[in-house]
C-alpha cells in the first residue's frame, strides 16, 4: 500500500470513529467493522486469511447459530445452550441440556474470544474452530443430527440460499461454507469492554482500592494459569477437582497419554457474573464456592498441577478478605456491553 492509501484509510477511520461517538449503538449496527483486535489483546491465532470476515458471512453465521433445524427434530439451536445473556453459556445448568431433554456430561462453555483459542472443548480434541460445530450437531445428547441432513434441510430454504449467495457469491451450500459462516459469527463474539479492559487501555476507568488489591492477589495466585488479558493461557491442567461420578478424565480421553489424565482446559474468567455454574461439570454454583475450592478443597488426584502443591500444602491459601478482594477484581471482568450487544442476538 502506498502512503496515500494509508492516509485515506486513516481519514476514513477517524471519520467512522467520529460518527461512532455521536450515535454509538446505531453506528455499530449499520457499519460492519469486521473483526477488530482490541489494543490490549495479543494477535489472534485463528487463520483469518482462510476465512475473511464479511458482514454477509457474519449474518449468515448468526442465522445458522440460532437455527433449530441444526438438530434432529428442529428444536435445539446452538443458541439454546450458548445463551447470550449468560455470555453464551447455559445458565442454570451444571451439564448441558439438549435434545429430548437429554443431559450431557459437561457444562456449556462461553462462546467468547474464540479467535485466540488453540484448542476447543473442556478436554480438547478439536483444534480448529471450523471443525468444532460437527461435534454438537452429531452428538446424541446435544443435537443428534447428521451434517449431511442439516445441509439438506437448510438448502431447500430460499432464505438460506439467498444468504449463502450474499456471503459466498453463489448459492452452493458446502460443508466448508457452512462451517466458515458459523466461525465468522463466533469469531465476532469478542468480549473486551469490561472495566478491566478500560483500565488497561487507559480509557478513563480506574480500579477501586479493593479491586486493585484483588488484582495484585490475582497476579500472584491465579495469573500463571488464568493469564491476562484473556484470563486463560489456553493450556490443559488439573486444578484439583475431585474425580467426578462419571470419571471424566479430560484431555486423556483424546490423547490416551497417562500424564493428561484429569487435565481440563483453563477457562477464561471473563464474565463470571453471567456464566455460573463453574468448571467442566458445573459443580460450583457460586464464585465463593470456587474460591473456597482453591483454599481448602484441592484434591491430590493424578497429575495435579504443581502450582497447587506448594511447600507441602495443597491448594492456594486464601483468607476471607483475600477472597473478597479477588471477587472484587474478578467483578471488573464482567462485560455488560458484550451480553447486550444486539449484533450477537437472534434477529
Amino acid at each position, binding site marked *: 500500500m502506498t502512503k496515500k492509501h494509508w492516509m485515506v484509510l486513516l481519514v476514513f477511520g477517524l471519520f467512522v470513529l467520529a460518527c461512532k461517538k455521536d450515535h454509538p449503538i446505531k453506528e455499530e449496527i449499520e457499519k460492519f467493522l469486521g473483526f477488530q483486535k482490541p489494543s490490549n489483546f495479543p494477535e489472534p491465532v485463528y487463520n483469518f486469511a482462510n476465512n475473511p470476515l464479511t458482514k454477509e458471512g457474519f449474518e449468515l453465521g448468526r442465522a445458522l447459530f440460532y437455527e433449530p433445524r441444526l438438530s434432529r427434530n428442529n428444536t435445539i439451536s446452538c443458541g439454546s445452550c450458548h445463551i447470550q445473556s449468560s455470555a453464551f453459556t447455559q445458565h442454570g445448568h451444571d451439564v448441558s441440556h439438549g435434545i429430548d431433554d437429554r443431559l450431557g456430561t459437561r457444562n456449556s462453555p462461553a462462546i467468547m474470544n474464540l479467535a485466540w483459542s488453540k484448542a476447543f472443548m473442556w478436554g480438547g480434541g*478439536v483444534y480448529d474452530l471450523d471443525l468444532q460445530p460437527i461435534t454438537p450437531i452429531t452428538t446424541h445428547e446435544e443435537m443428534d443430527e447428521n451434517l449431511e441432513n442439516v445441509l439438506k434441510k437448510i438448502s431447500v430454504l430460499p432464505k438460506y440460499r439467498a444468504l449463502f449467495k450474499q456471503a459466498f457469491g453463489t448459492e452452493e451450500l458446502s*460443508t466448508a461454507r457452512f462451517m466458515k459462516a458459523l466461525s465468522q459469527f463466533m469469531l465476532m463474539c469478542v468480549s473486551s469492554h469490561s472495566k478491566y479492559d478500560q483500565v488497561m487501555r487507559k480509557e478513563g476507568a480506574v480500579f477501586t482500592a479493593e479491586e486493585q488489591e484483588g488484582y495484585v492477589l490475582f497476579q500472584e495466585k491465579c495469573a500463571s494459569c488464568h493469564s491476562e488479558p484473556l484470563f486463560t493461557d489456553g493450556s490443559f491442567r488439573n486444578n484439583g477437582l475431585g474425580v467426578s461420578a462419571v470419571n471424566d478424565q479430560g484431555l486423556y480421553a483424546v490423547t490416551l497419554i497417562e500424564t493428561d489424565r484429569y487435565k481440563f482446559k483453563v477457562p477464561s474468567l471473563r464474565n463470571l457474573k453471567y456464566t455460573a455454574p463453574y468448571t467442566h461439570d458445573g459443580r460450583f454454583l457460586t464464585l465463593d464456592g470456587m474460591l473456597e475450592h482453591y483454599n481448602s478443597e484441592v484434591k491430590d488426584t493424578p497429575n495435579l498441577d504443581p502450582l497447587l502443591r506448594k511447600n507441602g500444602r495443597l491448594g492456594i491459601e486464601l483468607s476471607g478478605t483475600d477472597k473478597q478482594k479477588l471477587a472484587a477484581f474478578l467483578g471488573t471482568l464482567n462485560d455488560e456491553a458484550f451480553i447486550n450487544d444486539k449484533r450477537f442476538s437472534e434477529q
Partner: protein
Amino acid sequence: MLCIGLVGCSKKDNPVPEFQETNLAPLSIEFDNIVGARTFTLNNTGSPYKNAAGEEFTISFLQYFISNIKVETAAGKSYTVNPDSSYFLIKGADKDSRFAKVRVPEGDYAKLTFTLGVDSLRSTMPIDKRTGVLDPAAGADHENGGMYWGWNSGYIFFKYEGNSKVISDDANGDPTGKKQFKYHIGFFGGYSVPTINNIKVITMDLNAAGIAKVRKDRQSNVHLFVDLMKVFNGKTPFSIAAHPNVMFNDFSSTVAGNYVEMFKHDHTEN
C-alpha cells in the same frame, strides 16, 4: 508412413515409454475384499466365517480409507499421485468403490505404495480441503457410514463391524444384546501433542505377481486381495470375545498392526 512404422514396432516389442511426469495414463488398484479362503459377503448368517480362535462371526459393515498412492519403476523412478486426487473410501457394501483410480506417467511399475488411513497432513488441513470422501458430512452419521470423528477431530481409517455369538451381553461386550463387534480404528498422531499413530503405509512388490504396464491406450489394474481374516489372525491374533469393541484405546494399535497384513498382490491385468 513413419508413424505407422513406429506403432507397428511398439506393438511388437512393447518398449517401455520414457518416464515423463506429464505423460499421464490411467492405473487402477483393485481392493478385492476376501475373508480367509472365502469371498466377502455381508451378513451371511447361514454360513458364518471362523477365525483362528475358533469363533464364528459375520460381517455387517466394512469401510476403509486408501490414500497417497505412489508407484515406482524397476529403475527406481517414482511418481506420487497428486494428493488432491489420492483419497479413496473402499466400501464393503458398494462393489464399485473397490477401485482406486489414479493417473500416473506411462511406464512399467514394479512397486506400489499406499496408505491405509488419512495422513496427518490431510487430517489437520482446513475445512476447504476436505471434500469428496473426506467431507465430514459425507456418509452422514456413524450408523450410516460416516468416517469422521467430531469430538476428537480426525478420520476413522478402518471401520469393521459384525456379529458373533461369543460376545457377552454385559458392558464388556454388547449391552444391547445384539452381539455386535465394532472396530473403529483411527488416530493420526495428534494435532499438537503426539498420540497413537495408526497410519499404515503399505508397500508391495509387484514383480512376482505381475508388474503394472501403464499405457494411455489401456487400463492397467493391480488386483489386490484384502483378507479381513487377518484383522483377527494377523501378527498378534486376538479373540472377538476378549476385544469386541476397539475404538479409541491402546488396543487399536494391535488391530492396526494386524490389518496392515491384509493386503496381498494377486495379479495385474494389463
